[in-house]
């Protein structure tokens, strides 16, 4: 199980950072399939000490790793989840501030010889705000970097030594 930090930058909008957790079971598809949960928020990014809108993203994901035995692993991921923004003032209660999230992602992951993994990927929010429906600060294109630590490294190393 990999646990760590996720740093996300939406193109032409906010930095949103948080945590990520990715789990793969050895008995299922030889560690090709990871199930994950992430939470990223502008509260831990652009909105820290600024007037940016405070918004939260809760994501669950399925990730398919290619070349699972190698250090450098391309991957495909599909996220779904929930987005909510806090507009603070009641005058804005008439505006939509939450949405379902659906975002495919693709990138590469590098696994070091010690239990650290770094991933970088490009994602696309299929659902965005359009001025009529959906929150206005839900933008389409983002890049994310994750730095995670495999907390079951000992078992993992034994099983995966090659």
């Amino acid at each position, binding site marked *: 199980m990999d646990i760590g930090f996720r740093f996300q930058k939406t193109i*032409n909008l906010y930095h949103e950072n948080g945590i990520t957790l990715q789990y793969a079971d050895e008995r299922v598809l030889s560690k090709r399939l990871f199930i994950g949960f992430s939470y990223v928020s502008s509260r831990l990014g652009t909105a820290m000490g600024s007037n940016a809108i405070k918004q939260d993203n809760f994501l669950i994901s399925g990730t398919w790793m290619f070349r699972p035995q190698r250090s450098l692993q391309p991957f495909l991921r599909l996220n779904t989840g929930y987005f909510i*923004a806090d*507009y603070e003032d009641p005058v804005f209660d008439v505006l939509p501030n939450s949405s379902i999230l659906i975002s495919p992602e693709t990138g590469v992951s590098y696994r070091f010889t010690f239990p650290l993994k770094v991933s970088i990927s490009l994602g696309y929010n299929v659902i*965005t705000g*359009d001025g009529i429906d959906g929150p206005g600060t839900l933008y389409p294109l983002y890049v994310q970097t994750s730095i995670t630590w495999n907390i079951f490294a000992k078992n993992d190393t034994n099983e995966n030594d090659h």
Partner: protein
Amino acid sequence: MKTIIRFLFLVFIISGCSKDPDLTEDILGGGAIFDPSIYNPEEFLISHTIPNPTPEQAMTPVIIASHGYTATTFEWNEFRQYADEHGGVFVSQVLLGGHGGNYEDFRNSSWRDWQLTIILEYDRLVQAGYQNIHLLGSSTSGALFLELLSGAHFNGKPAPGQVLLIDPIVIPSNKSLSMIHIFGPMLGYLEVEQSEAEDKVYFRFRPEETLRELQNLINIVRKDLEKGFVLPQETSLKVYKSIKDPTADPVSAVLIKNGLKTFSGNSIEVEMINSDFHVYTRLELRPHTAADKQNQIETFNDILERVLNN
């Protein structure tokens, strides 16, 4: 491999498309139609209409009314007419730089060019002795005003009394604009669906260069608002925002309210308007309801009241 070849072929086809729109003389930008303020500035700009005001005229409120991206002075004609009928104010209709003429001039213009004509009219009015100047801007002009207010532009000179923003844009409704720097060069231009009558007063074709300028401008304004800034001491500001706006996302009003404070540290005023128009104050050439008309008139009255009581 076949997929890659297909993809490359598609990219080749898209990038090989014509970068120039099919301009005709019956649309704005086609070379035959120009904004009337270009030929007759004295009918639109108070600094040209009354360059040497009497003391009484100099005290009369002047509202600089400035339009949005791709629009012309037409956008504020209805307000000008309403204000003239009700009396007590002068309305100076500014044409943004690069707008209202040839497509090529528009394509080559930057957001600083757009803003320059506002600055020039403001400075001419100040120099002529007008002492009661206000700014009224729709859409992109809202962003242009905010950029002026966030900097040092009004240091050492009289600041505007009222700054009134109709559907200002900080966040676009069409989120594809956020990717214009990536896909713009392949795109060349965007065509907007609008009526034949609107084709004569709004550019039908939007060059990708100007879309990039728009994105640059709203990024600057958004970041200024994130840092926060205060209005000059003598300035009040109000935002009027359609709650369903297909062009300037209503969340723009949230960013402005969060990022901007009056000189004394108070929040600025925001009124959310029950409308699905962008720039709901312009109804001419648009099918509209009685409720739309009521929104327009209420806002016109509010603007005049604020300016006359400033």
